């Protein structure tokens, strides 16, 4: 299937219908469709998109869907992508409210949804590992682990909002290479001085 619209529709339908547990738990599914299956963008671009999306308010899954659609086919692509992602569950909301008691009191449905949670946990864990690996590859072991610890403290111990933590790192990131160069040239100067 090479038609980008049908790819978008099928991919985003799948993520919309199978993504249980709210926007953030759908991210690994969206990543699978966008990066591994259809190669709409590469993994680094997906990571950047996810990071920037987290610094903005509003639902995360629809922001990602809109951007992926836009990337492929401009505004019509964005519309198709978002519609495929949200319409099935939105229409189900409207039509199924009459069956609310059946649905929310059914032990079977409760068990089925709960059984997906460990799968989502595994997918999130895989993503964590892959991003961690990439961070260590790009930054080196010492800096990588230092930044992991700092992120953990900011996110978990201080419970700063993820969007704010990302902004802090983006801000530092803007100066990272400049700083590194300056440190390097200082070291070189020192070596030359001692020689």
């Amino acid at each position, binding site marked *: 299937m090479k038609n980008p619209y049908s790819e978008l529709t099928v991919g985003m339908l799948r993520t919309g219908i199978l993504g249980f547990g709210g926007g953030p738990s759908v991210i690994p599914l969206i990543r699978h469709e966008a990066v591994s299956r259809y190669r709409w963008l590469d993994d680094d671009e997906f990571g950047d998109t996810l990071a920037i999306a987290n610094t903005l308010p509003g639902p995360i899954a629809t922001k990602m869907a809109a951007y992926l659609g836009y990337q492929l086919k401009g505004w019509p692509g964005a519309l198709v992508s978002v519609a495929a992602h949200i319409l099935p569950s*939105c229409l189900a909301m409207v039509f199924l409210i009459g069956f609310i008691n059946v649905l929310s009191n059914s032990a079977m449905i409760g068990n*089925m949804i709960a059984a997906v*949670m*460990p799968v989502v946990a595994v997918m999130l864990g895989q993503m964590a590992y892959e991003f961690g690996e990439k*961070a260590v590859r790009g*930054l080196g072991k010492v800096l990588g682990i230092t930044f992991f610890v700092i*992120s953990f403290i900011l*996110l978990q111990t201080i419970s700063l909002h993820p969007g704010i933590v990302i902004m802090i790192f983006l801000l530092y990131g803007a100066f990272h290479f400049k700083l590194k160069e300056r440190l390097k040239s200082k070291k070189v100067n020192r070596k030359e001085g001692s020689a």
Partner: protein
Amino acid sequence: MGFIIPMGVAVFLAFFIANLLGYGGGPASIPLMYDQIVTRYGWLNNTEFSQMLALGNSLPGPIATKIAAYVGYDVYGWPGFLAALAGTIIPSAVALIYLLKILRKYKQSPIVKGMSLLVQPVIAIMMLLLTWNMAADAVGSIGYIHSIIIAGLALLALGKFKIHPAFVIVLAFAYGGFIIPLS
């Protein structure tokens, strides 16, 4: 309020405001949507809101759009459905598209390169915490044994055999529907 605003506009505004202030994805904006829907406009009462939320949680897909679709339709039919969804999705989606457009333009600059390198450790830790929360939820609702069995099988299927996640999720549904009730 001293003046009357058209229903469609009110619906759009309510969801626009709730999601603009709801920083951190759909689930984070539920209390803000409650504030607009129940407290401010009285479109639903407390019980109706929690019933709707229960239905939303038993359906897939993003939660913010499910709430918007339902409430929009409930107060103003299909135009309300569209207005509520537009208010929820469009502002943040458009902002993301333009912001990334600017960043992609300067992709080669050391500033943007540094930024995209430095967000990786944060994303990794963020995902790790989400993993932890999701695992804790799973254990809380189906216990250790089922959680570990499903997670182990999922790890094999996704990591080793590279089976499409959609298929793994469907299998997990089957496990939840047929095997969990046996225990």
